[in-house]
């Protein structure tokens, strides 16, 4: 798994918010979705995913609740709040500006 990239510091919140936009999901779903959507390039560290979820929950950007999962076990599902939706829009715009700027810097010469 040497060719996998760690999720960049600070982008995990944005990724989680974006993935939750599609509906409630539990931690496991999120790790699978990250791997699938990044076509296996991004590998989220579980040790940072759950702290990130807690952080988002404490900030009121997501709410967590227990619900039966597809294999009939209790799993904690996270859902975007209105504040979370707003934060997603903002962070997404910020990220696009940042990556655009970085792209220009790297392309220069």
């Amino acid at each position, binding site marked *: 798994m040497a060719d996998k990239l760690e999720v960049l510091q600070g982008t995990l919140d944005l990724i989680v918010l974006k993935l939750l936009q599609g509906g409630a999901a539990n931690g*496991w779903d999120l790790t699978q979705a990250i791997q699938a959507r990044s076509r296996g390039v991004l590998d989220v560290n*579980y040790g940072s995913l*759950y702290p990130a979820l807690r952080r988002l929950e*404490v900030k009121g950007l997501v709410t967590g609740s227990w619900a039966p999962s597809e294999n009939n076990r*209790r*799993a904690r599902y996270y859902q975007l709040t209105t504040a979370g939706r707003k934060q997603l829009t903002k962070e997404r715009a910020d990220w696009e500006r940042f990556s655009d700027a970085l792209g220009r810097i790297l392309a220069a010469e």
Partner: protein
Amino acid sequence: MLRSLRARLLARLFRSRDEAELDEELRYHLDREIERNRAAGMPPGVARATALRAFGRIAAHQEGVREAWRWLWIDDLGQDLVFAFRSFRREPTLVLTVMLTIGLAVGLNAAAFTLFNAYVLRPAPVRDPASLQAISWNSQARRRSRRRRSRPSRCLNRSPYLGGGAVVLLACGFGALVPSRRAARIEPLEAIRAD
């Protein structure tokens, strides 16, 4: 803001329940990982071992989550303070007004209480305050009109001094307010020792 405060309070109140939930959450994740490995054709023991290796030490994750939670409020507090000071900088007039208002109010209250404390609550700072006498005199004009006395005389008003300096304070206060027609001059009552 309110929501996050509530979440934090709840987290504190139900710390142990929260830990159990976190435990269950991570365990669920691990089990899904094992399931996936088994579906990929691994024997149970290998599937579990692989999952555990990929997952890392569970305790370490739990500690990471706990740590994030523990320090978050300090972080938030710092951010709130910075935000507050920035807002102050943006509204210097408002801040100045508020500071003056509060400062004056506190100062006035302190001054008023200091006086009240010194004159009313505490006994007069002399030996045997109960034996103090109050002396006053009235002008000749008033005496004539009232009592038709031709001879100027001083009226020595001796009254047992009531405990504390309350009478002095009240007399001084009212003395300044009494119109000059009724009493041309009332000297500020001197609190002297009777002996």
